């Protein structure tokens, strides 16, 4: 597997605050990589650096071999790296379909193709019945899937999901996990920031753990849950025990 995304020595400073310190990791093509860590670990900051919303203070971010650190976000999107927002941002006065259509126009400037792509994305994200609904009037679960559908419509090579599952009911979590599996099945590479271990552990190929802005571990989910550093910093002993039991049963 070749690397889709290479993050090398990325640091991000806000004044005196060091939000990320010398973080390096790779995302392999076609993989689902999870970025986890306690609150304030710098996950979203790192995420925003990759998506072009922040210019990192130091380090390099290469997407498909090209340097993208410091590029404005619309250029990052045009290179095939799409993102969703942690706090959902529907284009409120537009319908669900129109929201997705805006994304679809990126790869398909002509109306006919863009509409076809948008319809497909509606379906992949279980949003058909909400097609003509004003995007601002939906439940949070639907809005979260709209975030994914809109990003997906840009025909990306890789998609960045910022806490796509946070705040959802258990039914909605299952729907979202299904959507993420579909993304992978469609050949997309996924980097996801997530808090809900039950959602990320079963589907991730690799987990990167951040704490206080630094990477403290990287590896397969089953190894990560046993890593003492990760348990101390984030998961807690109880979680490791349940995972052990789950694996043993």
């Amino acid at each position: 597997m070749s690397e889709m995304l290479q993050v090398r020595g990325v640091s991000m400073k806000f004044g005196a605050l060091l939000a990320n310190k010398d973080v390096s990791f790779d995302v392999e093509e076609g993989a689902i990589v999870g970025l986890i860590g306690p609150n304030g670990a710098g996950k979203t900051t790192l995420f925003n650096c990759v998506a072009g919303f922040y210019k990192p203070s130091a380090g390099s971010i290469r997407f498909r071999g090209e340097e993208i650190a410091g590029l404005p976000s619309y250029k990052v999107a045009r290179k095939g790296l799409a993102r969703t927002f942690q706090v959902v941002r529907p284009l409120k006065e537009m319908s669900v379909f129109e929201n997705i259509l805006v994304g679809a126009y990126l790869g398909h400037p002509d109306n006919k193709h863009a509409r076809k792509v948008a319809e497909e994305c509606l379906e992949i994200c279980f949003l058909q019945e909400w097609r003509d609904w004003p995007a601002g009037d939906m439940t949070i679960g639907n809005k979260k899937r709209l975030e994914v559908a809109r990003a997906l419509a840009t025909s990306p090579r890789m998609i960045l999901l910022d806490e796509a599952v946070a705040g959802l009911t258990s039914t909605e979590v299952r729907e979202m996990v299904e959507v993420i599996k579909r993304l992978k099945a469609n050949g997309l590479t996924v980097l996801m920031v997530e808090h809900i271990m039950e959602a990320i552990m079963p589907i991730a190929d690799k987990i990167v753990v951040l704490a206080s802005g630094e990477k403290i571990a990287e590896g397969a989910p089953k190894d990560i849950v046993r890593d003492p550093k990760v348990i101390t910093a984030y998961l807690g002993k109880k979680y490791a025990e349940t995972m052990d039991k789950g694996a043993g049963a």
Partner: protein
Amino acid sequence: MDYKKLLSKFGWPLLLVALAALPLAGLVGPGFSSHVLITVLLTAAMAQAWNLIGGYGGQVSFGHSVFFGIGAYGAAFAVCVGKTSPWPGMIVGAVLAAVTAVIVSYPCFKLKGHYFAIATFAVVEIFNRVFMIWDWVGGAVGLDYTILEDGWRNFTWSVDKRGYYLGALVLFALVFTITRVIERSRFGYYLRAVREGQETAESLGVNSTGVKLTAMALSAFLAALCGAFFAQYNFRVDPPMVMSLDMSMKFVLVAILGGIGTFWGPLLGALVLIPLQEYSRAYLAKLGSGVDLIIFGLIIILMMVYQPGGILGILTGSRKRQARLRARLAAEGGAK
């Protein structure tokens, strides 16, 4: 096909045909009602030009009188100083207005929401002062037309208003048709996406600054053409007449009154406001100047409080909203 689809497909061309037929039916002539009709068309075109960036693009500009004024001065300069036909002045004025819009808007677009609006206020003041002291374009006195031969070459008619009516109709048709095409195009969707959330739009590959500047340039170009018509219609131009906050307000308020960010809103706003303004000015003048503005202000206040969607919102919005709520309740009931 239901009537709504038919209306959305054929409503606009049918309206144009009907308006074009008015002079043939002898309904347009030298009278006051023709003046009102021309002013409605001109004002609707102005408000729609503003609506492109202010409504669809969500960038509330109070600077449009500057572009309007540049267009007016373009035509007047060609006639009064250049001693030629106003046509080249109109085109040059419109292009200059678009260029000015890009130069002025680029720094202003770094500001968002109210701050952008406030910055555009300042722009009007600056241009007003510059034109006041600029002798080459007549300074505070402005430019007065000499008597010209009637006809399309000079774009002036002294008594019969049919020429002006057709001119206003062409302008109106141009601005509204451009808006309709944009509304249904990729650029239109991008423009609305930028209004609804700039960062979201950028995350979808939209160059928001580029989109806003393009819309602003187009909006200014069209506003300048309206200004040129205004100068030709009034036979004169001076800074307070065209480059003032009063004039800027007209762009904004007509659109707000009718329904901001909608295709029909500017026309509805002009249809309600202009007859009101012109007739109250004609018949209530003995009560003192500005009665029309008092009535106008009152309507705007009531509108903002009770129906921010404008007249179009009264006609469609509330019903749509109710239907939506009903559908939502039904869906939630079904889910349980």
